[in-house]
């Protein structure tokens, strides 16, 4: 059977879409954890993770400019009001680890931290 040029293009587009779909599936297979920041806390403040399981932290600031910093996993990002910030974190060791706001954000800044529990 002879394939028309139009049919070829459609078939090619389908392949491209399928390939893109694979990529989307690959990305969406990583667990997304929304994390809100506000004066002076993270919500959630305790995040449970599995060792070697990559996750996407979806950070949103609900009042002022903040920072997210997990020194043990070398992950940090500014968290800017009005913007969604995604950071990828792959916990390569088990244990309990502190994350913190590393932008001095007000008189409760020093209590603004949370815990990563990696099992």
């Amino acid at each position, binding site marked *: 059977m002879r394939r028309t040029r139009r049919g070829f293009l459609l078939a090619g587009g389908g392949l491209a879409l399928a390939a893109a779909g694979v990529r989307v599936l690959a990305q969406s297979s990583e667990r997304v954890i929304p994390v809100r920041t506000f004066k002076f806390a993270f919500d959630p403040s305790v995040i449970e993770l599995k060792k070697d399981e990559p996750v996407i932290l979806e950070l949103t600031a609900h009042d002022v400019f903040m920072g997210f910093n997990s020194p043990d996993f070398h992950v940090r990002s500014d968290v800017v009001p009005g913007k969604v910030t995604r950071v990828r974190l792959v916990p390569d060791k088990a244990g309990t680890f502190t994350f913190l706001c590393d932008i001095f954000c007000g*008189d409760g800044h020093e209590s603004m931290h949370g815990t990563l529990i990696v099992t």
Partner: protein
Amino acid sequence: MGIDRRTFLQLAAAGGGAVFASSLAGCASLGGAGREFHFVQLSDSHWGFQGPAVNPDPRGTLPRAIDAVNALGEKPDFIVFTGDLTNTTDDPDERRRRLAEFKQVVAKLENPHVRFMPGEHDASLDRGEAWKEFFGETHYVFDHRGVHFIVIDNVSDPAARIGEAQLAWLKDDLSRQPKDQPIVVFTHRPLFDLMPQWDWTTRDGAEAIAMLMPFQHVTVFYGHIHQEHHHRTEHIAHHSAKSLIFPLPIPGSVPKREPVKWDAQAPYRGLGFREAEPDRREEWALQEYLVSGRPA
């Protein structure tokens, strides 16, 4: 018969009361005629702090320390406050009230030669704007008895950075110093990664340390962590000072960085100030004092 201060330091050292920086290196070749002097370091007074569980005498602790400094047998050449003069507040008017009150309180120091720098509590919420109104520039240099002193501001940026402009300023200043020039750095946060999980770091501190590394005699005095701590990055010594409001835990000793509770059986425990003196053995000798003025 009285004893002079140097003899006292030597005796105190024999009794374990003084830390001689010989074991810590980073000491300056400062001995010899014309270079004998000492300074006093006070830090982290957090004027305006309220928290009876950790310090029921927040307005009395700094004045006690000032009385003790005034009563020292040998007067220091100068006094330095390494930041967090005031406790932070979100209210700009209240920030200025606290800075003004602090300035009135420390005016009781009999020694007129007092150097200041901000901590993050003073300066991070307005990039040092209010602090400058009372104390001037947040980074500067001065020379005293053959030692080059550099004050580095790592707090006006709320992200705990020294910043490109100040690093360029530092590089320019150091370019005019011979490599054997004794250098002392005063700053608030540790320049090295002491405990990033507790925000005890300077994000670009490694760049400043790299610039200082070629110099043979560099010592850093800082505050921020509310306790005495000694560290080396190669030959550069870093000494943190006690606070004048509440102690903080030993790095990593507890899960959370919370102030140590007040002990009614031992009031003011963990608080104090220090003297630093370049001695004849090409070292910095440190003498720690309690708030009362008794050697620690």
